[in-house]
C-alpha cells in the first residue's frame, strides 16, 4: 500500500518539480516578504484502496505557486498540519514540494477523527489554509487502484482456462514441435544404450521460485521414461524442499511406469544450499560418474556456465531450460538444446501430451496475441498523434497506456 502512496507522491513530485524549478532561479531574486496566499480548496479523504492507516490530503495550488505564467515563484512547498480537534494543536505530518497538490498522511489510526490544514511554505513561514475535517481512515475490501491488474489478469487467465476447458471437451489442438523437448527421449535412450546415468539439475533456487516448480514437473515426465528404460538418474539438489518434492515426483513416475520396486530415495540427494558449493559437487559428480545426458531445468545464476562447460567436456548431451534472461546466452552457447524462457514453462505441458495441458499452451498463444494487439494499439495511437497532431490520439494513447500502469 505504501508503494501506491509513494507512487502518487512521485508523480505529483515529478510534475511539481518540473513546474516549480523552471522558474525557481527567478524566485531567489524575489523578496520573500511578498505576501503569498494559502492553498485553496483543501480536501481530505480516506486513502482509497488501502489497508487503513492513511488519509490523503489534496489542495489546489496557491495562486503564488508557479502556474505556468507567473514570473515568480514564492511558495517552495506545502506543509501538511494535523490535529485531533479543530482547535489544534496542529503538528506537521509531512511536506510536499511546490507544485504538488496531494499528500498521503500514512500515520493515522483508523476510526480517529482528524483535522487538517495546509501551509504554503515560503522561506519565512507562510499562510495557512482553513481547517478541514473531521476525516477518518479505514481499510477497504477492494483496491481500486489495481483494478487494471485485476482485469488484465482475468483476461489472460480466462484465455488460458478457456482453452484448457475446450481441450478437455475433446477439441483437437495443434502444437508445433519443440526441438529441445523432442530430444529428451533420444537423450534418455542414449544414456540407456551407453549404460551411463542421467544427471538432472532442477535449478539452484527453492520451491518458491516458479522455475523450480517447472523444473520438478519436467523431472516427473523425464523420470517416467527413465523408469521404463530402467536408466539410472541422479538428482543432486541445493534445497531441502526441492529434494523432498523431487523424491515424490520420481517415485510417482516409477509407480506410474509400474516399477515401484525399482525406485530408491538415493537417486535424489541434498548437497548444500550454497550456490558454488553445489556447483563444486555437481562438477565432481560429472567428471566421476560421467553421465551421458545432463538436464538443467529451473532457475540458474552464474553457475550455469560452470556446469554446462564441465558437462560439455565429458561429452554429455545437454538439454537446458531457464527463464533467467542473464543465463540464457551461456546455455545457448554450451548446451545442445536450450528451452528459452516461456518454453521452460511449456515443457511439462508438452511432455505430458495431455489435451488439457496442451490447451493451456494454446491459451498462452492467445495471451501473446492480446499483448501484441495491445502494443500495436498504443503504438498506432501515439504515432497518429505525432503525425497528425490531433490531441485526441494523445489522450486516447495515454488512457490506453495507463491501463498498464502499476499503482
Amino acid at each position, binding site marked *: 500500500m505504501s508503494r501506491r502512496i509513494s507512487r502518487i507522491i512521485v508523480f505529483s513530485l515529478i510534475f511539481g518539480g518540473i513546474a516549480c524549478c523552471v522558474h525557481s532561479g527567478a524566485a531567489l531574486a524575489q523578496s520573500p516578504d511578498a505576501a503569498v496566499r494559502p492553498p485553496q480548496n483543501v480536501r481530505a479523504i480516506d486513502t482509497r484502496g488501502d489497508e487503513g492507516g492513511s488519509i490523503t490530503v489534496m489542495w489546489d495550488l496557491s495562486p503564488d505557486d508557479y502556474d505556468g505564467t507567473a514570473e515568480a515563484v514564492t511558495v517552495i512547498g506545502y506543509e501538511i498540519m494535523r490535529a485531533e480537534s479543530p482547535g489544534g494543536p496542529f503538528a506537521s505530518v509531512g511536506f510536499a514540494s511546490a507544485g504538488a497538490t496531494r499528500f498521503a498522511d500514512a500515520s493515522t489510526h483508523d476510526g480517529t477523527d482528524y483535522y487538517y490544514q495546509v501551509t504554503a511554505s515560503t522561506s519565512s513561514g507562510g499562510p495557512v489554509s482553513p481547517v478541514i475535517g473531521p476525516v477518518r481512515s479505514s481499510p477497504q475490501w477492494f483496491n481500486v487502484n489495481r483494478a487494471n491488474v485485476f482485469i*488484465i489478469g482475468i483476461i489472460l487467465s480466462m484465455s488460458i482456462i478457456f482453452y484448457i476447458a475446450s481441450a478437455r471437451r475433446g477439441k483437437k489442438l495443434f502444437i*508445433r514441435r519443440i526441438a529441445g523437448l523432442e530430444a529428451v527421449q533420444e537423450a534418455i535412450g542414449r544414456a540407456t544404450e551407453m549404460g551411463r546415468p542421467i544427471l538432472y539439475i532442477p535449478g539452484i533456487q527453492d520451491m518458491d521460485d516458479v522455475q523450480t*516448480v517447472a523444473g520438478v514437473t519436467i523431472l516427473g515426465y523425464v523420470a517416467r521414461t527413465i523408469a521404463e528404460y530402467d536408466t539410472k538418474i541422479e538428482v543432486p539438489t541445493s534445497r531441502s524442499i526441492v529434494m523432498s518434492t523431487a523424491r515424490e515426483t520420481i517415485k510417482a513416475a516409477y509407480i506410474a511406469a509400474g516399477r515401484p520396486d525399482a525406485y530408491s530415495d538415493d537417486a535424489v540427494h541434498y548437497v548444500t544450499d*550454497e550456490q558454488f558449493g553445489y556447483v563444486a559437487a555437481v562438477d565432481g559428480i560429472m567428471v566421476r560418474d560421467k553421465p551421458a545426458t545432463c538436464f538443467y531445468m529451473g532457475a540458474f545464476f552464474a553457475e550455469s556456465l560452470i556446469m554446462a562447460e564441465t558437462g560439455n567436456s565429458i561429452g554429455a548431451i545437454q538439454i537446458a531450460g531457464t527463464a533467467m534472461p542473464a543465463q*540464457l546466452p551461456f546455455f545457448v552457447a554450451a548446451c545442445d538444446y536450450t528451452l*528459452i524462457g516461456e518454453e521452460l514453462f511449456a515443457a511439462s505441458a508438452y511432455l505430458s501430451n495431455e489435451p488439457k495441458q496442451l490447451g493451456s499452451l494454446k491459451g498462452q*498463444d492467445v495471451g501473446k496475441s492480446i499483448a501484441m494487439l*495491445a502494443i500495436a494499439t498504443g*503504438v498506432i495511437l501515439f504515432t497518429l498523434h505525432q503525425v497528425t497532431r490531433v490531441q485526441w490520439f494523445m489522450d486516447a494513447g495515454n488512457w490506453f497506456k495507463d491501463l*498498464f500502469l502499476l499503482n
Partner: protein
Amino acid sequence: MWMDSPNWVTFGTWVAALLTLGIMSFLYKDNKVYKFCEAVFIGISAGYWFVSYFWQTLLPRLGDPLVAGAKSFFSGSPIWGSLVLFIPLGLGVMMLLRLIPKTGWLSRWPLAFVVGYTAGLRLITFLQSNAMTQLQNSVQPVVRYDAAGGFLAWESFNILLVTVGTFAGLFYFFFSKEHKGAFGRVARLGTWFLMITFGAAFGYTVMGRMSLLIGRLDFLLADWLKVIG
C-alpha cells in the same frame, strides 16, 4: 585475541591460498586436491547455511514470537499473533513425518502449501513486473519529431526496430502454429533478435567474469606471494 596474531593471519592466508589453488587445479583435471576442497566446501557451506537459517529465521521468526506468546498467555494477554504461527510449525513438523513410513503421506501437505504459495504469488508478480511493465514501456510513437517539428529519423527508426523486434520475438514463442510460410519467416527474424540479445549479454558479461579472476590472482600474487604491490 589470538586470531589477530600475525602467525594466525599468515596461517589463514595460506589456507585460503591453498584452497584457491586446489579449486583451480580442476581446470587441468579432476584430482584428489580438488576433491578435498570440494569436500571441505560442501561440509562447511551446508553447515553455514543451517546456522544462518537457525539464527536468522527459526529463532527470531518462530521461536521468539512463540515464547513471547506463551508469556502473554500466562499473563492473560491476547495471543492471536503467535497462535497463527502454529500453522507453519505444524506444516514444518509434517515435513519431518516423511521419516516415518506410515505417516509419510502427510508430508505432501506442506509441499502442496509451498507449491500453491509459489503459483499464487508468482502469477501476480510476473503479471505485474513482466507483462504490464513491458507492455507499458513498449507503447510509444514510432515516428518522432523534435520540438521544432523536424523529423527525427534515427530515433524513429530505433523505436520502430525495437517494436518490430519485440513482435518477431513473440512470434517465435507461438506454440500452436507451425513455423512455416510468412509466419515462419517472422519467427525466424525473432530468433535473430534473440541471438543478438544473447550475443550482447555474453560479450558484455566477459569483463565481469575476468574481474573475478583478476581478484583471485591478485590475492595469490599480492596477499600470499607478495610479488606484486
